[in-house]
């Protein structure tokens, strides 16, 4: 929990675009290799590899909070669908989150909704990246 807070702060503090990029690389590498919460060092400081959504979902496991997280995931997924970059599993994950919510499993619902929202956010990122990069693989 404490580590997650450190990271959330760090993300907003990173000064320039270039630096932000290499921070992101370090972050993604740690996450890919050692999983959620992996601690990595960047520019002499320690960070935990926790997604924005995981920080968001790290709240009291109540019905209201779970519902709020599900709503956020739905809204984000709607946004990415409109851009044409919706991922395959996201709707199913949101459904599972809703079932968990109905069953009173609020922690599970929060975590699933966070995952769905992460998918949607990545799809939006992918859309923006595609706008400037799709040309790269066109044979000339």
């Amino acid at each position, binding site marked *: 929990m404490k580590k997650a807070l450190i990271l959330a702060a760090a993300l907003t503090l990173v000064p320039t675009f270039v630096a932000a990029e290499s921070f992101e690389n370090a972050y993604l590498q740690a996450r890919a290799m050692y999983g959620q919460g992996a601690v990595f060092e960047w520019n002499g400081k320690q960070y935990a590899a926790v997604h924005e959504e995981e920080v968001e979902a790290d709240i009291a496991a109540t019905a209201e909070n779970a519902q709020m997280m599900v709503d956020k995931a739905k809204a984000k997924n709607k946004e990415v669908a409109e851009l*044409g*970059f919706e991922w*395959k599993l996201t709707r199913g994950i949101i459904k599972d989150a809703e079932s968990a919510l109905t069953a009173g499993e609020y922690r599970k619902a929060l975590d699933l909704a966070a995952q769905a929202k992460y998918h949607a956010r990545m799809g939006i990122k992918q859309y923006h990246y595609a706008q400037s*990069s799709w040309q790269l*693989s066109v*044979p*000339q």
Partner: protein
Amino acid sequence: MKIIKTMAFGVGLVLSAQISQAADSGFTLETVNPEADRVALQNYFKKRFPDAELNDYVNGIYAVDSNSREQWEEIEEFPPYEFAVEEGEALFNTTFANGKGYADCFENGGIGIRQNFPYWSKEEGTVKTLEMEINECREANGEKVLKWSKGDIAKVSAYMAWTSRDQVIDIKLPEDDAGAMAAYLDGKKFFYAKRGQLNLSCANCHVQGANIRIRADLPSPQLGHTSHFPVFRSKWGELGTLHRRYSGCHKDSRSHPLKPQTETFRNLEYFQSYMNNGLAINGPGARK
């Protein structure tokens, strides 16, 4: 002297910048150049697969992978789509309740016209596919529309392709119509943009990844992709339309797939079919 050298260098830079600009096949509505795209794609595959014949690309992966080609040639000896073509012919010739038929809706009575689809309709401001017009024909004559991906629509489409075998694909792109260019560009962009949880573009598999093993599969070169649809796939055990294939492949990038005949898929078909101009219709086809 030193000054002159510096200047010459400067001019050289400007020139080379212009050259590299003129050589690209266009990524915006102002610069997009479908003919340059088509030629560049052919040249790309000529380099990748120097032994493959251009006209053979309509045979998909079998144009470049001799191992699977033998199996496929055996399949083609007793084509699995044969019955479907016969059923398609019967459906095509069955008159509607109002006494009219498919032949009344198409040029040349619907025979030998596959190579002209899809086309840009200026009046409607959209790309029209053959399947779309099959259903429009039904609707205009008071018949129920058919489902898009398989079944009767694929059979009718297969029969129409069959009557068009060996006709040369001839997709028109009216240069004075910005809408047509925009549709083409949209299809091109869709094909080359990475998407889905696997972050893969169509091109990753069907251009750069053509004939490179992905798990148990070898993706075909995109050149020739549309010529033989609808297709009888052993995996499906039946015929399916091009857009059924598009949905499946779209999903393979772990994207939520678009539905058949949505505008984006029609634009994609427009782009892909234009790439095949000059190749021959050979539908329906058989694939794994």
